[in-house]
């Protein structure tokens, strides 16, 4: 099929993140590298009557953040995560706020936006028509993305995608396309979601949640763990980043997407939908499967998801699939739902940058003989010559997304 990809290489010039491992990319990488699961008891809401009781809750924000962001009191938690992560990403990219760019856009993913705050409102409103209406202002799923656009002074395209667990990755795919085509020069792309009772109760009603921290790809795994947070990448044309003397963190080489069209909650067990997204991302990147040095898996830890993903890896990587190192970020930060694709993109980029793959906790779970994979566990795996990786997001409802990142190597050095 004739592919009009545009000729521009798109670089990641800045990243920002907050999740159960901490606020800021440095704190997050420290936790990832240590293989420390941030999944444990949480206090966001009273979970006594929920079926499970764990989550990777983000701690309190840095105190200076509230002072730096106008209107802080009216923002939802998901908005605040998004603003923190985008400020960090923009700062690390060496850009300033307001962006003042006519050609900047925001591409965001979220599955519930300000739902947590809305739940508090609804509790009062449904009881006695009380509740502050203003707490609903951020209720929509596009709340965090719009808040970022407002804060950064963006006047270009602003879009929120809400395709469940693929949202954060699909947003990056949209941003990639926008920068490649020249529609924007700077794309602020990512996702944000906060813990809320609706999704907590909902996934528990589906019995998709493990009572212990999730164990992606491992024997005895029994479901996902919840997480929350935000992750943002700044994407720009490579030449533009180099021209201002900044260092690209990575190249977003390709994106692919597909739909299982199989079932609303269960993945296609053959893995062919996920394989199609992976193959499309590889084709889009121009890299062959052999060039991929590791995979940041979707790896929720549910029996069905991981099994289907294994099938997809086999189809795409053939005999290499069993030896290809797999990085299971959700084992440490839980499932960030609409943000997961973006957070895992950041994790992938950090692994590429540092030349080592972060581990999942090894204790308490053994390998699953049905899934003969090379999951990185216990210790970080050094990969000094690492060149490229793919990150997958396989969503509820069958929407699949895959992103190919390659390491930026300064060939002039």
């Amino acid at each position, binding site marked *: 099929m004739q592919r009009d990809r545009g000729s521009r290489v798109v670089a990641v010039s800045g990243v920002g993140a907050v999740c159960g491992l901490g606020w800021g990319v440095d704190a997050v990488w420290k936790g990832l590298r240590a293989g420390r699961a941030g999944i444990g008891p949480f206090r966001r809401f009273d979970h006594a009557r929920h079926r499970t009781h764990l989550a990777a809750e983000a701690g309190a924000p840095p105190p200076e953040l509230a002072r730096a962001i106008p209107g802080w009191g009216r923002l939802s938690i998901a908005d605040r995560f998004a603003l923190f992560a985008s400020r960090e990403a923009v700062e690390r990219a060496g850009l300033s706020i307001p962006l003042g760019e006519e050609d900047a856009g925001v591409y965001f993913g979220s599955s519930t936006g300000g739902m947590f705050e809305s739940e508090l409102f609804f509790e009062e409103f449904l009881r006695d028509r009380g509740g502050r209406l203003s707490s609903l202002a951020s209720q929509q799923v596009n709340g965090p993305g719009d808040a970022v656009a407002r804060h950064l002074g963006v*006047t270009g395209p602003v879009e929120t995608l809400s395709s469940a667990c693929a949202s954060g990755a699909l947003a990056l795919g949209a941003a990639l396309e926008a920068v490649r085509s020249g529609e924007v020069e700077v794309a602020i792309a990512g996702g944000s979601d906060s813990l809320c009772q609706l999704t907590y109760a909902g996934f528990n009603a589906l019995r998709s949640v493990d009572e212990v921290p999730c164990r992606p790809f491992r024997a005895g795994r029994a479901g996902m763990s919840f997480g929350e947070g935000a992750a943002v990448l700044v994407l720009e044309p490579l030449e533009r980043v180099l021209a201002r003397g900044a260092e690209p963190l990575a190249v977003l080489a390709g994106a692919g997407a597909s739909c299982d069209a199989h079932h609303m909650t269960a993945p296609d067990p053959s893995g062919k939908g996920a394989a199609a997204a992976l193959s499309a991302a590889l084709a889009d990147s121009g890299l062959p499967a052999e060039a991929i040095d590791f995979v940041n898996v979707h790896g929720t830890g549910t029996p069905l998801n991981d099994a289907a993903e294994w099938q997809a890896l086999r189809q795409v990587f053939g005999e290499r699939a069993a030896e290809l190192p797999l990085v299971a970020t959700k084992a440490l930060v839980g499932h960030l739902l609409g943000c997961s694709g973006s957070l895992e993109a950041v994790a992938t980029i950090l692994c590429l940058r540092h030349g080592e793959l972060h581990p999942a906790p090894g204790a308490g779970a053994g390998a699953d003989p049905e899934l003969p994979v090379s999951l990185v566990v216990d210790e970080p795996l050094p990969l000094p010559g690492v060149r490229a990786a793919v990150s997958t997001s396989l969503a509820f409802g069958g929407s699949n997304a895959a992103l190919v990142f390659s390491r930026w190597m300064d060939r002039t050095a």
Partner: protein
Amino acid sequence: MKEPVLLTGLGTIGAWGPGSDRLAEALARGEAPTAEVDRAAGYHLPEGAARAGLVPPGQFGCWLSSGESRRMSPPSKLALAASRMAMRCAGWSGTGEEGTAVVISTAFGPSTNTEILLKQILNEGPEAASPTLFTESVANAPAAQIAIACQATGPSLTVSQREAGPLIALGRAAGELTTGRSPRALAGAVDEMTPLLHALLDRFGALTREEVARPFDRRRSGFLAGEGATVVTLETATGLKERGGRALARLLAWGNAFDPTAPPTGWGTGVEALARGLRKTLSRAGLRPEDVDLVVSGASGSRGGDRLEARVLRSVWGDSPLPPVTAPKAVTGEYGGGVLGAAVLAAAGSPLGATPGFAEPDPELGIAPHDGSPLPLPATVLVTSLAAGGAAAWAVLGRP
């Protein structure tokens, strides 16, 4: 040179009933079908808005089997019905859509399911949460159901950007074709208007409390809430020629922008930022403002929204006179993609009646929407949508 993107089928369901013929009739007659909102739950203010453009009951029969719709949320049913209508209109078989992309926008998602779930959790406890309702409460449920129904295995995206969502979804879907990622696509919008959502919109002061909305009118006081789904089929010229079909319209350009001065639920003052976005969109179509034959405007009767829309149009047209401007949300209500349906119909030559509710121009805006007199077939149609919260999206349609 990018492959031209053609719109080959249109499916729509709303207060006007099922089918684009019904929408065309409502637009031609300049009639706004509305119904009483059920206010029994007591969510509404006593003096608040009482009517909305609601989908009449029992409309799905021939488009969905009871077996497949048993567990679907209202938006999934609406969107699937509209998709099947669009595919039938285009001459697609309705199944075997290998590689076809599905891009649906929704402002509020499945509101009924969300409300019931919240009540279960808050009133009975989290253990009472229904897995079926939860599955169908996610924003991407309609897109997922469409994909399952027609076996569309291409990219599946759900856009959520309030009133600008439908045209953003259209642009996203078109991008799948022009980059060669998908051979063809379904794009559209869906929303449902529940009593609770209606009551909350009214409490925010967004709705008109009259029986009609009055886009661009001096006395306008808010929009008419609506619900429904609108879906179009998109194909490349090559693909269409290969299968021997015909198109309703050509998508010449699309674009979107943002006004960072807007508060989360209102409109801002960023006229220049939005005007820049509109100019860019027109130039992508190779058009100057004076080349536009018809504006199908997303103006809805909102005081702030219509004002901003008028200012943006004025900024782009400058001293040149505007072409005829029609405001179909006076007929379709806000939400559900009615403006997208109206635009495709207009581009395909459907006659447009007067704008119901409009009587007195607002001197501050200086725009009088089309009065219903016969218009020549437009060669170029600009479609606009400004969203509360700052987003804006446009599309330009042309002859096939």
